[in-house]
């Protein structure tokens, strides 16, 4: 088997400070970035912190910025990167740094908890089950492929550059809200929240999130834009606005 070496420039340190350190390690055919990080961890830096679990692109734990691009380390093949210069590996920038490649993503869990949960209609059949056509759930299943790697949150400029974490839930949770809103059984109404607390208006459809999604979810076109349309239909449709005005006067 062909072996050679490559150099990885990894951001070490915590929120108080840190720097890039170079590690040169042996590489072999088929390796991904996470393999290189593991090899460095096992042989040169036992205390190098990184998250990972499945190593197969299914759990969304090993998100990082590789040569400046938000990606899963386990799904980034070394042969897709230029190895004549050091490969830089950095933690996601949108979230507070814990240590090395590990960031504090707890904000995401708090945001999710605020979104109104699934509320199904009464069962369709006497045995307590429902009927749904496959074509009516295809879209929802696309959204439910999400592995919560939070790369879309990382790349979203509303969060990354403008730090609107308190006013905007980010692409991941717009996809989550869309999966609930478009679920054929769901009866909950989340449009007011989307407009106000969730800040859907902040998204200006630059589609950066769609580009980095490792699950190829069409975040902007299939989730965010239809949700925006629903919000617009309810709150900004001139006819409905007029009707609402009449209705509100007894």
């Amino acid at each position, binding site marked *: 088997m062909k072996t050679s070496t490559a150099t990885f420039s990894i951001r070490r340190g915590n929120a108080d400070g840190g720097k890039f350190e170079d590690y040169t390690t042996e590489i*072999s055919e*088929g390796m*991904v970035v996470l393999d290189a990080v593991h090899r460095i961890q096992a042989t040169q830096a036992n205390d190098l912190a990184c998250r*990972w679990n499945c190593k197969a692109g299914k*759990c969304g734990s090993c998100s990082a910025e590789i040569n400046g691009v938000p990606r899963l380390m386990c799904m980034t093949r070394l042969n897709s990167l230029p190895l004549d210069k050091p490969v830089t590996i950095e933690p996601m920038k949108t979230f507070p740094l814990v240590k090395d490649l590990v960031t504090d993503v707890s904000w995401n869990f708090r945001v*999710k908890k605020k979104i109104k949960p*699934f509320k199904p209609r009464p069962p369709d059949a006497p045995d307590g*089950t429902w009927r749904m*056509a*496959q074509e009516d759930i295809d879209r929802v299943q696309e959204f439910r492929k999400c592995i919560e790697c939070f790369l879309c949150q990382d790349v979203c400029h509303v969060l990354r550059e403008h730090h609107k974490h308190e006013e905007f839930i980010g692409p991941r949770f717009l996809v989550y809200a869309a999966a609930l809103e478009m679920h054929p059984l769901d009866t909950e109404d989340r449009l007011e929240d989307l407009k106000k607390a969730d800040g859907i208006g902040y998204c200006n459809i630059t589609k950066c999130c769609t580009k980095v999604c490792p699950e190829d979810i069409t975040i902007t076109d299939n989730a965010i834009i239809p949700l925006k349309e629903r919000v617009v239909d309810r709150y900004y449709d001139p006819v409905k606005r007029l009707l609402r005005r009449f209705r509100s006067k007894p």
Partner: protein
Amino acid sequence: MPDYETHEHDVLIIGAGGAGLRAAIEASAAGVRVGMICKSLLGKAHTVMAEGGIAAALANVDDRDNWKVHFSDTMRGGQYVNNWRMAELHAKEAPDRVRELEKWGAVFDRTPDGRILQRNFGGHRYPRLAHVGDRTGLELIRTLQDHGVHQGIDVYMEHTVVTLLKDGERVSGALAYERERGRFKVFKAKAVVLATGGLGRAFKITSNSWEGTGDGVGLGYDAGAELIDMEFVQFHPTGMVWPPSVVGILVTEGVRGEGGILTNKEGKRFMFDSIPDNYKSQTADNAAEGWRYCQGDKNARRPPELLTRDHVARCIVREIKEGRGSPHGGVFLDIAWIKEHIKDSAEHIQRKLPSMYHQFKQLADIDITKEPMEVGPTTHYAMGGIRVDPDSQMSNVPGLFAAGECAAGINGANRLGGNSLSDIIVFGKRAGEYAAKFAKENGAGQASEGQIEAAVSRALEPFERGAGKGGAEGPYQVQSDLQEMMQDLVGIVRNGEEMERALEGLGKLWERADKCAVHGHREYNPGWHTAIDLRNLLTCSEAITRSAIVRKESRGAHFREDCENKEAAFANVNTVVSKASDGTMQVRLEPIPAMPDHLKQIIEEMK
């Protein structure tokens, strides 16, 4: 006195995969205060890796299916050393647990009339696996997680439990550390549920993530819980074999359920030549019939690729050993061939097996709609684990419960694919229910300062050794040598002499583990985590090896070349591992309680 925070709960759940989440939801619904500790972030547990589906006799696709068929399939797959009561409860309750997931928002693939679709899987007589493409585990964990976070459960992410705390005989809590800062926390609890999953990391080639270090088995054993069936480790027949960095990653049995075939380098479907006698009546003997089965023909028998995992894995090993393997030391798994039967086969495969398509395309540059995959066996699942009461899931330690992969009994000598996702929701629920009941009926126990102090200082020992002079070795080397040894000496094909060597090796590895050192500080330090996990891996490895030595026969996943046949003497016994008062590990054989007549009758009828 060591510095730590204290948290109090009625029920403490250790592990947040499907079993832990389901237990937490149930305990919380019973009105007790629930804490749940997860080693990773919530929703990342190994359950996400389950691909093929959840086995439940819903009879949506084939109305001949019912719990009795599922029960007898499970017992046959387990070679009848299963806990029959667990197999019965599992088969009866799985359909309700699956329907409940739908109520909580899961979106399963549908039948043409809008019900939950079910697919074929190895060892299941009828199409029985509710699924979502090939990412069923993700759907299950996300559904439980999104439902669970609204049930008032306190979740402690990225915490590792170092030891269970006891008050006399009963359990009274756990000592854990928080990975982010390395701080210790004492969790006081009236009942504890272990739901820590598997132990695949004891072997070199495994489908398990870093978390699969057998923590529940190790913690439970140290607290006095008995283990059973530890010799039965499932080697999944189809893991990736190339490129080297992905060796062991799972290739779902769903590929074969959708019509995928196994061939050797001569292009021969070798499984047709190796159908065991007790499956002959249910297995197709020609390609045409096998294909018809995969297409839903109720009169066709299933193809031999869908025989049980233990058997298929051994046939693959045989092909490789006898020189008929693929270039990278596996065999071929071909789903692309279905283009002979299906017009838009590429699109069909991508729809049915999206994550397999993705996985091979990205990690191996292989388009599975056009060319065959190369696959070989990978350590996948532990049938053995903590011995539990079948109804309540309580171990022999009062207040200590276990559910899911770290508990044992339902699977016997071999687990059928799809039975683990149903296992975790059926017995996760039961564990949560009975743990809550125990907590209500029993007051809080005490955890002595001495116990806590001793555990804290033991956990910190690797740092002291790291600070000292001299080049003490790190934990990674010990772990990797253990994995190498277990793979070589206690793997798919075993013999007594090699396993005795493994036992000696384990003695030395224990010594090295006791001397290994870590550097740096306690904040998010993977070296330290590995040093702590290592002890659990060693406990599991020793229990596997000792049990496998005692079972002098071949049965299910346990195959010995020095005794290749099933022996009547072992047909009705379980191996039981326990910790003697002097701290040594003891193994004994114990007879399986006689099966009641109504269950015997079902097995007779389904033969």
